[in-house]
């Protein structure tokens, strides 16, 4: 039986019991990103000199487009989780912490969606 009052729990003075999930998804996305990053890094090196037509042709095959989309999803999910911890650790006072946490989520959704849309437009619209 806990001796903590419901109020003390509600005031965020203890665990919200979401830590395990955060930790686990950070690892899952990391595991996915190891092969995806090696693959994409090699592909990017091969595209250093590419013009628009070459780049579009490269990304237009279904396999590559799907892998880039997976990379985008895993990256921005992982990025959101990582930045969240940095913000929680270093950003004070509290109202700026909360504001930064909200901005973090919006930022990751915005940039991630923009990347995903770009891939879809290039792959489907080409």
């Amino acid at each position, binding site marked *: 039986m806990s001796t903590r009052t419901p109020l003390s729990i509600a005031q965020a003075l203890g665990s919200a019991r979401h830590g395990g999930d955060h930790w686990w998804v950070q690892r899952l996305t*990391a595991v996915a990103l*190891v092969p995806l990053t090696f693959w994409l890094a090699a592909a990017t090196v091969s595209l250093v000199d590419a013009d*628009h037509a070459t780049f579009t042709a490269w990304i237009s095959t279904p396999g590559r487009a799907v892998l880039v989309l997976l990379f985008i999803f895993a990256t921005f999910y992982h990025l959101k989780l990582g*930045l969240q911890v940095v913000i929680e650790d270093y950003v004070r006072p*509290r109202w700026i912490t909360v504001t930064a946490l909200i901005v973090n989520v919006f930022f990751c959704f915005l940039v991630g969606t923009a990347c995903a849309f770009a*891939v879809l437009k*290039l792959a489907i619209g080409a």
Partner: protein
Amino acid sequence: MSEVERPLSPHLQIYRPQLTSLLSIMHRATGVVLTLGALLWAWWLVGAAYGPEAFATVQAFLGSWFGRLLLLGFTFSLFYHLCNGVRHMLWDIGWGFDLPVLYRSGWIMLFCSIALTLLAFIAGYAMRGGS
């Protein structure tokens, strides 16, 4: 909401840095740096989606000396975060907590991230025919 004043740890003014702690904070630092790298990467993709002119602008910027300098920093950050991330995964499965092993894996990780960065740049320059 009440803000409790808790003691800070580690106490940075009297804390003596070691390889282990420096590599650890570098993992965070490279993670934050990679946020900016992700933005640059997004600009590359979105530029391509806007069309040939926008993409050429991005490619020209990335090919400039400043663009290459940024790419060097982001490439090292990426491989550092990746290699040290693998080190973290090994710790997660319970491997490598003895102090000598911890130091050795740290040096190996650092060597691998520098080697992969050099490899990527050598391959990149080879793709451009040396320019």
